[in-house]
């Protein structure tokens, strides 16, 4: 039914036809009075990685749950691997792997038993499922803990076991809801490597994340979602361009920091400069000559400079300007809420 070889064939089939692996049009989902998804459109090309980025409560998990047939959409059309999430749900499940936001492993089963069970539920024979389990335990460095019940695992180990569960059938399309939340930096890097390997083998990945560096590194395209709507979508570069041109950052020396300096620098930009400590940050109209111009003007006014540089906007800034709030702050708030 879902032997690895067949899976690979289906990957190749989608790749060859250059079909989109995921097409979402006008997806709406309510929970009572809450509009969790308010007309979402997505298009993920086969073999690419889409990063779904958004603050808490934006609707990321809801989107993933609809796309993986766990929730029925209220309206809109959702196709995964060319199959409709409502009408072809059973066939669709053969094509996907899911690692949800919270690790879903059986605490009383060992790592190996968990993976073997999932393999058999994908339709593998016991032997085949066991062999696949061992492969994955090895890949996720769980081989030493393979025969211990999962309730003895650390949070990160559980997370890795959950991801391994999602990969058991070598799915053509993989859904990862905040896959690296709760992983230490080393495990996170290892997981990024694994995802890149899977993509190199032709897997399509949709991942949600709170980490902009993760989206920046892994995602071919990023969709920023807020209040159930996609507010921007494109490559990381495109999004950065959208937010505006180059950033000029000037650190003034102690004596030089005054209103006059801010006015001088402000004249180089269409927007008000952003002042942080003794640093002034602004979006410049023209990259070329910006540094020279700033140095000259400040020099003429007798204002000293400690440091000056040009850089592209970060995804954080993109996010801030698109959603009106930074990711990290949102995160802190929810933690205080005790989530």
């Amino acid at each position: 039914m879902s032997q690895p070889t067949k899976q690979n064939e289906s990957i190749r089939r989608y790749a060859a036809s250059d079909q989109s692996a995921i097409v979402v049009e006008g997806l709406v989902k309510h929970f009572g009075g809450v509009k969790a998804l308010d007309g979402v459109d997505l298009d993920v090309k086969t073999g690419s990685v889409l990063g779904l980025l958004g603050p808490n409560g934006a609707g990321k998990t809801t989107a993933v749950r609809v796309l993986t047939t766990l929730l029925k959409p209220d309206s809109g059309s959702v196709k995964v691997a060319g199959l409709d999430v409502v009408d072809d749900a059973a066939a669709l499940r053969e094509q996907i792997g899911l690692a949800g936001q919270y690790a879903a492993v059986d605490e009383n089963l060992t790592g190996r038993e968990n993976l073997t069970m999932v393999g058999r539920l994908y339709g593998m024979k016991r032997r085949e499922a066991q062999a696949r389990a061992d492969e994955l335990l090895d890949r996720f460095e769980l081989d030493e803990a393979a025969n211990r019940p999962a309730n003895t695992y650390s949070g990160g180990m559980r997370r890795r076991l959950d991801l391994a569960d999602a990969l058991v059938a070598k799915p053509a399309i993989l859904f990862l809801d905040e896959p690296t939340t709760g992983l230490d930096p080393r495990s996170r890097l290892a997981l990024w490597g694994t995802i890149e390997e899977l993509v190199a083998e032709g897997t399509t990945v949709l991942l949600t994340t709170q980490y902009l560096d993760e989206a920046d590194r892994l995602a071919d395209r990023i969709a920023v979602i807020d209040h159930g709507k996609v507010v921007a979508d494109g490559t990381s570069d495109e999004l950065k361009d959208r937010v505006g041109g180059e950033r000029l950052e000037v650190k003034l020396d102690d004596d030089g920091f005054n209103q006059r300096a801010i006015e001088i620098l402000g004249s180089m930009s269409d927007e008000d400069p952003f002042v942080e400590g003794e640093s002034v940050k602004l979006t410049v109209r023209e990259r070329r000559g910006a540094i020279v111009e700033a140095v000259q003007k400040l020099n003429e006014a007798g204002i000293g400079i400690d440091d000056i540089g040009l850089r592209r906007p970060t995804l954080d800034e993109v996010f801030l300007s698109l959603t009106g709030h930074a990711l990290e702050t949102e995160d802190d708030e929810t933690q205080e809420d005790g989530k």
Partner: protein
Amino acid sequence: MKRLVSDTLVIAERNLVRLPRAPDLLLAFTVQPIMFLLLFVYVFGGAIVTPGYSNYVDFLLPGIIVQNIAFGGFVTAVGLNEDLSKGLIDRFRSLPMSRPAVLAGRTLADVATNALSMTILLVTGLTIGFRFDAGLLEIAGGVVLLLLFGYAFSWVFAWLGLLVSSPESANSVGFIAVFPLTFISSAFVPVDSMPSALQWFAEANPFTVVVDAMRALWLGAPAGNSIWGAFVWTFVIMAIFAPLAVAVYRSAAGGK
């Protein structure tokens, strides 16, 4: 259909494998029934008059086994609710497996645990003086009835476990539902010793029907309508609650 069978077996195996690793549950299947039996026989036994039975343990054992088997479904209710809140149900629902298999596997595993506690109760009962008054065929028929009735009841608990919001409430709702049902029946005392309002309830109670059927099968008590009545009740309960539970499972939103 082939998938339904193989997936059900995988899930049943999973539930049986994890059982010995949850010692509190194992205790519920082994020590608890023995404790109940001994308490009833030696604390209440002397005070309860059971006309037609040479001693209380003969009267009690079929009743206590039926009660115990009804309680066996608790594991299903609590376990399913745990699966729901820990996200395992989401995992299963995202797999290309047969939909009813998660519940069918659970309830099938209950048959094994029910058989275990039934055996324990029988052995204890025989040790303290219980004696069959029946042929092998009737004894076996009783065992079959017990396991079927337990299986039907597991579906009630499966439905319950998917409806309530936490494993703890699965536990207490189950308790509140099953305790009166088993006590206001012929399981522990003769029905005609109860006040008349309770008698009316006790006589209509499926537990009474099943317990009476067990006494007829194992002890040669007058059967009346109880034997076929017990099988009818068993199938009616199954026919109502299995589809209900599967419907709730299909639409289960899943906890966070």
